[in-house]
């Protein structure tokens, strides 16, 4: 039955994350961007919130909460509200742990999950994108083929968060169908696998505080059970949906950050004898932002809710991510416009929001719900 309110546990988690984003993340957002690094102390404090450990079953050392895409979306939005790059860094381990929890064999879980239940930040990641103009996550060019009891992965990846730090990587590859087409398949690859080469740090318009690297896989051999939910196309669609919802939720966070920033500025800033927010041209831009932030969130939550019911949510996840990607750009651009010349200089955060906002439409697999 229709309900637009989070449950008590989700509210509690949200409150915690809101406080952390406001008090710990946001104050470091500019510095992290300029320096290209997230302070270690911040990572550690973020780790202690238990956002990674929470969904790991107790038998592997975690808190054993059921994995909820909706809760994941709430966390992603709030952290990204603080800062997108820092949020992605903090949540990067989930790129590995969520697929493991959902799709891995017990043996693989036992082997990999306990490392994420310790006291210090443990990096994990996924390698989804490929350095091609026409990258399509529904048909990756990275090749996965079976060879006896093992699988062999070959290909090139880019935008791998914490690529040089993570010991294990969920790699998206294409497994050949009979008809010449491929279907996507996620496979866990250890960084020390022969044939795997982590590239240098990538440089992007935004996300400067987040380390991303390229990855080359030259006939990397992986054990059979490292292929997650092998042959289960529905599971792989679900994984893609979780990526979409994760990024969509982060887009909501960035959009809301830009909107809040612009609104507060517009109320303070005076011109022509009034606060600039009193001008219709500015006020209507702000009103649209407010409306669209809510619209984005509702669409993302609907997709997350469907995933939590284990229904097919591919359409909802895909469309809500597209919508959120378009809107976050529009909102960040308008927020900068509200600040005018002040928005263009790096004294204010809106230019950072704009640079980060632009990534959503093309980036995939950098977050997971």
């Amino acid at each position, binding site marked *: *039955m*229709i*309900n*637009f*309110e*989070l*449950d008590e546990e*989700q509210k509690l988690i949200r409150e915690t994350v809101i406080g952390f984003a406001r008090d710990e993340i946001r104050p470091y957002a500019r510095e992290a961007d300029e320096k290209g690094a997230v302070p270690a102390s911040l990572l550690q404090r973020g780790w202690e919130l238990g956002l990674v450990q929470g969904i790991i079953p107790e038998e592997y050392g975690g808190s054993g909460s059921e994995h909820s895409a*909706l809760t994941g979306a709430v966390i992603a939005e709030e952290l990204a509200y603080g800062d997108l790059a820092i949020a992605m860094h903090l949540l990067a381990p989930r790129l590995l742990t969520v697929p493991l929890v959902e799709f891995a064999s017990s043996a693989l879980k036992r082997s990999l999950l306990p490392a994420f239940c310790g006291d210090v930040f443990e990096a994990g990641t996924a390698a989804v994108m490929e350095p091609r*103009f*026409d*990258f*399509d*996550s*529904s*048909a990756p060019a990275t090749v996965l083929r079976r060879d006896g009891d093992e699988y062999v992965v070959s290909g090139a990846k880019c935008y791998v968060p914490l690529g040089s730090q993570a010991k294990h990587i969920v790699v998206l590859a294409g497994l050949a169908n009979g008809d010449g087409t491929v279907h996507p398949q996620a496979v866990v690859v250890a960084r020390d696998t022969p044939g795997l080469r982590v590239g240098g740090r990538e440089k992007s318009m935004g996300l400067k505080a987040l380390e991303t690297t390229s990855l080359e896989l030259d006939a990397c051999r992986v054990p059979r059970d490292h292929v997650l939910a092998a042959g289960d196309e529905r599971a792989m*669609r679900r994984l*893609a949906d979780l990526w979409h919802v994760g990024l969509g939720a982060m887009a909501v966070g960035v959009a809301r950050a830009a909107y809040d920033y612009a*609104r507060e500025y*517009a*109320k303070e800033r005076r011109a022509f004898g009034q606060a600039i*927010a*009193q001008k*219709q041209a500015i*006020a*209507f831009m*702000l*009103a*649209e932002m*407010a*409306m669209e932030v*809510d*619209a*984005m969130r*509702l*669409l993302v*939550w*609907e997709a997350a*809710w*469907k995933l939590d019911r284990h229904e097919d949510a*591919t*359409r909802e996840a*895909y*469309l*809500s991510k*597209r*919508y959120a990607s378009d809107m976050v750009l529009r909102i960040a651009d308008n927020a900068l416009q509200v600040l005018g010349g002040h928005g263009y200089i790096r004294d204010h955060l809106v230019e950072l929001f704009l640079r980060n906002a632009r990534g959503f*439409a*093309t980036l995939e697999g950098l977050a997971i719900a």
Partner: protein
Amino acid sequence: MIDFELSPEIAAMRDQLHMLAEHAMRPIAREYDEREHEKPWDFINMMWQLSKSSGIGPGAAKDGKDKAPERDRNLRTVVAVEELSWGDAGLYLSIPGPGLGGAAVMAVGTPDQKQRFLSRFKDDKPVWSAMAITEPGAGSDSAAIQTTAVRDGDHWVLNGTKIFCTSGLMAGDATKSNGFVVVWATIDRSAGRAGIKSFIVDAGTPGMTVAKCEDKLGIRASDTATLIFEDCRVPLDNILGSPEVPKTSEGFKGVMATFDATRPIVAASAIGVGRAALDFVRDELKKQGVEIRYGVGPRKLTAIERDFMDMETQLQAARLLTWRAAWMMDQGQKNNLEASMAKAKAGLVVTQVTQKAVEMLGPLGYSRELLLEKWMRDAKINDIFEGTQQINMMIIARRILGYSSKELS
């Protein structure tokens, strides 16, 4: 806990109404577009019987003995209105029942007023009510209302002209129904907004004349009337709310509060029209073998696929905002901001979606052989009535900025 699924009761009602929309509305939609100013009496009578017997539809009894559980009345209404408007927005608007006038009585009426006026909606013959706000000189500026109500003994005496009253003919003309019109008038012009009150005027009250029904771009099955009030006397206790003029504009806020209930309804109607267009386009594309591929990389999309995806996502965004606004009201939460968001978004979205749909079907989309072009004409009203796009953006802005109407106008 977050849940996007309709209750089984609402879902069942929706399915029933969908059948009705498809089989009782769609077949006559074109006819009553072309026969402007004629009323679809068969349809009207059927809807009247249906709402009395089954309690479904927006015209269902709402006198407090509503069969539907109170806790989801608003949500129920928006779901019903979307479905009926999917059938036809003009026909939906012509359905007898409480409508906007009734909503106002329900929202702020005394128990006596509810008894006197809402009980009519159980009559044997169809009854309409209407809301008379807009004036020739005022437009969206509700606070600038010129119609006056002057107390004279046991009566209020109304003078003024109201335009754009949806169902004003059916509600105000006693030969059409035993209806009533809720009229906004000022009892103290010097008090500005605070002086504005609403009055219930019975159909056929001497001094109230239906002067004209507009020729319109769309929603032609519904009448849009001009009502003239010349020394129109109504009993003292036909005033809605208090007859006092408050020092602040709180009273006006009370009057405006009915919009919090009606704006999601208009939004739902918009979404119904948009969905009609979207469903039609989807079916046609399917017939032509065009598959919408959710999940593929952006470089592989065709222009048509992307258009379609944008349309359906926009509509769903508007629907969720609308459901939220209705749900909040059902929870007893203030939803002024959210109601305006729903209305602003839905009005804009349905305008764009239907305009795009006409284009997507090429030469045939523009033809009156299909209903697409009609939906585009019908859709646009949603960007205008119950507060234009601009008025709703203004309300949103005031709320998020904490500004009064003086600080932001």
